[in-house]
């Protein structure tokens, strides 16, 4: 659907290169629900017929954002439990916590990638 020379740009959550199968499994468990591991977004893009224009590691900001979510969930716990229900609140807190665990244990990274279609 992208025209020739068009741009594919976005944020990708992925695993670092060289993880063991066990670590890849853990990364899959800790990452967002649709996530998987893709250890080198640029290499994958090149294989798919894209030229790499820009790749930037934004993992530090990813962690900061995750921590802000968890802090906000804690600060507004009563309001959020009342609005979402206990199960949804617990789910969100758990998922965000898992993602931070994945980042801090070196299993999850996030990159800003800009590719151009050939």
């Amino acid at each position: 659907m992208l025209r020739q020379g068009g741009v594919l740009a976005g944020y990708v959550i992925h695993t670092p290169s060289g993880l063991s199968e066990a670590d890849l499994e853990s990364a899959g468990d800790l990452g967002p629900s649709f996530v998987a591991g893709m250890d080198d977004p640029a290499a994958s893009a090149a294989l798919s017929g894209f030229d790499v224009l820009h790749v930037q590691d934004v993992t530090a900001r990813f962690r900061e954002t995750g921590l802000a979510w968890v802090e906000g969930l804690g600060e507004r716990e009563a309001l959020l439990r009342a609005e979402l229900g206990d199960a949804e609140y617990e789910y969100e807190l758990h998922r965000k916590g898992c993602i931070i665990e994945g980042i801090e244990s070196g299993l999850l990274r996030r990159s800003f990638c800009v590719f151009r279609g050939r």
Partner: protein
Amino acid sequence: MVRIEHHKELIDRQTVKYERPISAWTALEEAAFGAAMGSNGFTIQEEAEALLAAVPASGRVLDLGTGRGWPGKLIARDGGHRLVGLDMPVEALRLARSAFEAAGVADRAFVCAGEGSALPFASGSFDAVTHADVLC
């Protein structure tokens, strides 16, 4: 490695997320990130702006996994692009359409139900494709 297990369960899970009320969630976003983005993810304002800067200055943009319309609404609003927000849960698309209307871009930003592996568009339809944590 791409791991997408229990596909229907994941879609159902996403649908629950989009159906729930979000006023307290919105307040959380405003306090934590300085703006209510209508998101549940990790793409903050400055990252959305970086995304906008990366796409051609004009043209048609497909926003994959648009969710509640963030960051697509910023691209359509600040960049003036014609944009299609694509996602699978219909409730997400309703929210995205509302976000586009609220941002004043409903004349050039639209929603479409579909999934990335079977896109309902002709080859060469878009000048740019954007995504935020969906191509993982």
